[in-house]
């Protein structure tokens, strides 16, 4: 499984998660929902505990992306 596949998986379940967990953080690895967490830090700690230092997807559920304008980046 790749990180990109986990992103696609999250997109497929995002609407359902939003009904009950808006604002919380979901940890996804290998197209599986590992758990819901109150903070990014908690999800990050659990990811390290379960999988070691490897790529995982931690996404905040149901929140708009913050405005992020990077003027110097071309």
């Amino acid at each position, binding site marked *: 499984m790749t990180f990109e596949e986990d992103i696609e998986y999250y997109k497929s379940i995002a609407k359902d998660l939003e009904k009950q967990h808006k604002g919380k953080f979901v940890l996804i690895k290998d197209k599986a929902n590992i758990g819901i967490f109150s903070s*990014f830090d908690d999800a990050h700690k659990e990811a390290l505990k379960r999988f070691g230092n490897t790529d995982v997807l*931690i996404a905040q559920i149901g929140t708009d992306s913050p405005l992020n304008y*990077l003027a*110097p980046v*071309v």
Partner: protein
Amino acid sequence: MGIQVQTRPDPKKPGQMQLALALGGGGAALATRGIIINVSIGIDLTTADALRSLGQPIPNPITCPALVDTGASILAIDQSIAQPLNLKKRGIITNHTANGPRQCNLFAVALSFPATNLKSYDVIQASEVDLSTQPFKCLIGRDVLSHWHVHYNGQFGTVSIAD
């Protein structure tokens, strides 16, 4: 012209210090370059603890110039910082650039401000961006700015920062 960094008592907060920057060249230089300060970026403390417990090496933090950027919602780091630290992906974020929106990787890092008394961050999210053509390798975004009091004196080319 180098950046002169001084700490001085914060006149509005007795007992606390603020960082004062004289960027050199007066107001014109500040207007041209913006606010650039040195930062140290390393792997976050949680990951460092995990690596230490496994007996694995912990990469040394990297010190680099950083631009204070009110347009950035979070800390952003150049690929030349992320790669030697062997940072692992923790998510994605959409960055709006001159070339349109771009999906970028998110990492967890530790952030500190050498030679200042500004608060360090043991675990903070950072977006990966391409700053290869820039004189700075990091953008300090609004997540850090939300903890700061910044005074920008454009006429004299000085900046003071307190948290």
